């Protein structure tokens, strides 16, 4: 008979076997402690991502490195702790170069999943856009350093039959990355290699020729939250009295692909409602070039990549009561920001001077006083003006857009389904 101890998590008394892992005990008792690096069979626990930070006997500490003992009092779901956890996951998004719509692991990614569970629509931190390499040298694998969150799982868990490590941290500080040993990697069996890909919480370890793809909606984290009654309410949204007066809306696509605008059309029959309720001022939908009146709402698609984008965005801020970033590009730069870790001159010269289709000497990089000036990198809209709300997705789900707009304009009840909240 093993030792039983009594602990309290968020006021709930729980009996558990002494010395067991707190995250595990909480899970078995229906309490979800968000965690990323934690992996059940790795002992001692890694304690690297810090997402499971809780208050343990009044002190901040990660739950995953805590052994259950008598009288332990744990706080998990407090506004302060939830915000701290969000901040940590946001840090990972800001630190890496995570482009969900272009990632094999999207939909099966633990990091993305944690973003969904915590309801992260934008990161509070400016993305760092550090230049990282993709290592194609290993025989069987590809190391995508842009996506690695340095959780240590692969370092500790992936070993060859001789017991040698295949992955190891290199450098330190903000230069830290997980290096792969080509020689040892070649010695892994197919099964071990695939296992390494699966143990990776993001898409940093990819095994060539082994597909991760599944149709949208059938991927691991697409449909259901691990938290029951997942009901995302945006904090800080004032609930307003519903007054269904007609509202004026303006929209624009800056450095975007118009995909978010297309997604808006997917609200199908509700478009008819919309036309009743909303009139469009400056927008690609009306083709108005200039504002004709002050607007209740401005919807911005795309990030800011040139001087004209800045002017337009500033104009929107001036003319609209509320501004919303629509989609990943507007929120943090998105796909166009793939150029951010590369010097501008290299990008322009590759495109205009050295590309396969350009003749030597025949091409120049366009420059004219009438042309907008290209910025050194793509900026998020909230680096230029204040943005009030963010709707994530690439493109955002039509329902998500329409529900948010209805909430902002008329204070309608706001509840986004887990399955509607996506980064891809």
């Amino acid at each position, binding site marked *: 008979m093993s030792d039983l101890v009594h602990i309290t998590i968020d006021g709930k008394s729980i009996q558990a076997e002494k010395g067991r892992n707190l995250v595990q005990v909480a899970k078995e008792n229906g309490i979800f402690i968000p965690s990323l690096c934690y992996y059940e069979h790795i002992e*001692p626990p890694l*304690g*690297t*991502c*810090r997402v499971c*930070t809780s208050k343990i006997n009044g002190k*901040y500490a*990660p739950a995953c*490195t805590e052994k259950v003992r008598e009288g332990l009092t744990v706080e998990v779901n407090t506004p302060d702790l939830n915000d*701290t956890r969000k*901040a*940590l996951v946001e*840090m*990972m998004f*800001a*630190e890496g170069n995570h482009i969900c719509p272009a990632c094999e692991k999207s939909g099966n990614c633990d990091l993305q999943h944690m973003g969904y569970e915590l309801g992260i629509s934008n990161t*509070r*931190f*400016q993305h*760092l856009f*550090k230049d990282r390499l993709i290592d194609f040298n290993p025989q069987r694998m590809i190391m995508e350093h842009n996506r690695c*969150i*340095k959780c*240590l799982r692969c370092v500790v868990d992936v070993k*060859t039959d001789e017991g*040698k*490590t295949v*992955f*190891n*941290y*290199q*450098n*330190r*500080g*903000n*230069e*830290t990355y997980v*290096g792969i*040993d080509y*020689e*040892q990697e070649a010695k892994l069996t197919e099964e071990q290699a695939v296992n390494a890909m699966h143990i990776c919480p993001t898409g940093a370890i990819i095994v060539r020729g082994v597909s991760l793809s599944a149709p949208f909606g059938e991927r691991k984290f697409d449909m259901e939250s691990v938290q029951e009654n997942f009901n995302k309410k945006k904090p800080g949204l004032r609930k307003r009295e519903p007054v269904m007066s007609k509202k004026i809306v303006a929209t624009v696509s800056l450095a975007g692909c118009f995909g978010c605008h297309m997604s808006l059309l997917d609200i199908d029959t509700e478009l008819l409602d919309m036309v009743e309720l909303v009139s469009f001022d400056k927008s690609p939908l009306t083709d108005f070039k200039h504002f004709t009146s002050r607007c209740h709402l401005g919807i911005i698609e795309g990030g800011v990549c040139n*001087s004209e984008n*800045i002017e337009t965005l*500033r104009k929107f*801020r001036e003319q609209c009561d509320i501004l919303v970033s629509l989609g990943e590009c507007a929120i943090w730069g998105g796909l166009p920001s793939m150029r951010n870790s590369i*010097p*501008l001159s290299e990008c*322009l010269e590759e495109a205009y001077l050295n590309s396969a289709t350009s003749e030597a000497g025949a091409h120049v990089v*366009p*420059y004219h006083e009438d042309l907008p*000036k*290209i*910025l*050194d*990198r793509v900026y998020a809209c*909230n*680096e*230029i*003006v*204040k943005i009030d709300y963010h709707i994530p997705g690439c493109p955002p789900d039509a329902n998500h857009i329409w529900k948010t707009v209805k909430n902002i304009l008329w204070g309608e009840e706001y509840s986004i389904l887990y399955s509607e909240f996506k980064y891809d």
Partner: protein
Amino acid sequence: MTEPMRTHMMDRLWELQLANGYIRDEDIKNLSDEFNLSSIEIEGVVSFYHFFHRKPTGKYTIYLNNSIVADHKGFQRVKETFERETGATFGSVDRTGTFGLFLTPCIGLSDHEPSALINFHPFTHLNAIRVKDTISALRRGLDVDMLCDSPSDNLRYAPAPGSVFFKSFEPGMVLEKASVLGSDGILDEMKKAELSGRGGAYYPTWKKWLAAKNAQGDTRYVVCNADEGEPGTFKDRVLMNTRPETLLEGMLLCGYTIQAPHGIIYLRGEYRWLLPKLQAAIDKYREAGLLGKDCGGIKGFDFDIRVQMGAGSYVCGEETALLESLEGKRGEPRTKWFFPVEKGYLQQPTVINNVETFCAAARIIEMGSEAWCQLGIPGSPGVKLLSVSGDCKLPGIYEIEWGMTVAELLELCEADDPMYIQISGPSGECISIKDKYRRISMLDLLARKDIRSGGSIMVFNKSRDLVKVLLNFSEFFKSESCGICTPCRAGNFIIQRKLERLDLGLANEKDLEELKNWGMIMKNTSRCGLGKTATNSLIFAMDKFSDYFKARLDKDYNGLNLKFDLEAATEAYEQYKN
């Protein structure tokens, strides 16, 4: 118990680094066979420490210190002169392979800035002429050890009855007294003297020793943390240079108390030039029968000490990171799954104390806890070594009785129009001259009356730019973070970007608020002390100097438009204007 093969890793890497100036590809291959580890694991260790390189570092490898004190004393000019004279740029080697120039954080010579290490020999009080002469002398083939300095100890102040730490010392005396007191007697003396960890954490020494004594293990270890990396601290350097015997005796004392047979001094790579002196002291002790078998004639007490060189990593001053490094691994702090006194070095009970703590322990037994308690103030008895540097006429070591005020200290060191004072280095606390009547003691921190110090006091005058100081600190933490936990690795990077905005005048009120909040998040969630304290100075500074920060903000901010430097952002594109 013999130490496993892996623990020789650091020594082997040092051998190779010194022999060839870098670790060659074939070395990695050989080490991988020798240690039966994958190459990537060896590479991981090499790339963790900044004195190990994978590319040639020149016949003369020059590490110039870029700490904030150096910066204020003329670092920039010295740096430019080095580049001009050697033909190399920092971070690389000149074309002939003669000179390699590298920047490094504080090398423990803050009282002699600007300073540099050339082939690990100290060169102090550098200026353009000195650099020019040195480089030309090296070109002429003169030996580095003939040209280098022996940095003076700068002992500036001791309490009226005379110095406790630096008075003459008779080897073996403490051990003799210890054998009379016995283990419990020693612990009792430590308790009465209220000795606590001088590295800055102030954990009661007797508790630590007792816990290790009572812990289960096959053997026990006494480890001295001589990885004095906190910028502005150099007291341990002076202790080891002047009275290395007291350190050895303090370790012997601990070994006797907890019945440990092994002592290890983890000496920071920057202090390699102190190694011969330390080694000589150890040899002398061994010859005198004070180390080895039946130390000091105490039957059955076998104890020996070896020195382990670090290789350039601030985080290795964190005790569990230090243990990892001793074990020949990357210096990544462990989780708190076990404490070192339970499972430390090689998973055995281990006491880790700072140099000054061991020296103080030896002195307490030598003079008796009663005499020790005559010094200082109630609740904080004894003396403390402070390393004072920055804008003052007399930088150096101040041995103060606990309870001295900051004002008295500033007067003693002849501070030049001080504005703010950095206590305990970048990870400590930043105080304003308005707080100069606060006492320096171990008393309650929360009372905000007294202030503790790990040993570093940096004085800055009115002409210094506080934001630039904080930027220097954040650059330091960003590159010294071990990189294993998210808040420290990414957080320090993010904070630095934000500070740059502030420095450029682009920030607004909201940015200040965020800086503070993010600083708190790092404090609450980081894995070890580095991340937990990295934003201390920032948070304190924003509290103390709120007017100063407000004056740096964007004055046109209306809550909607953020300031944007269009000229800077289009500079790269403008080069295509025909």
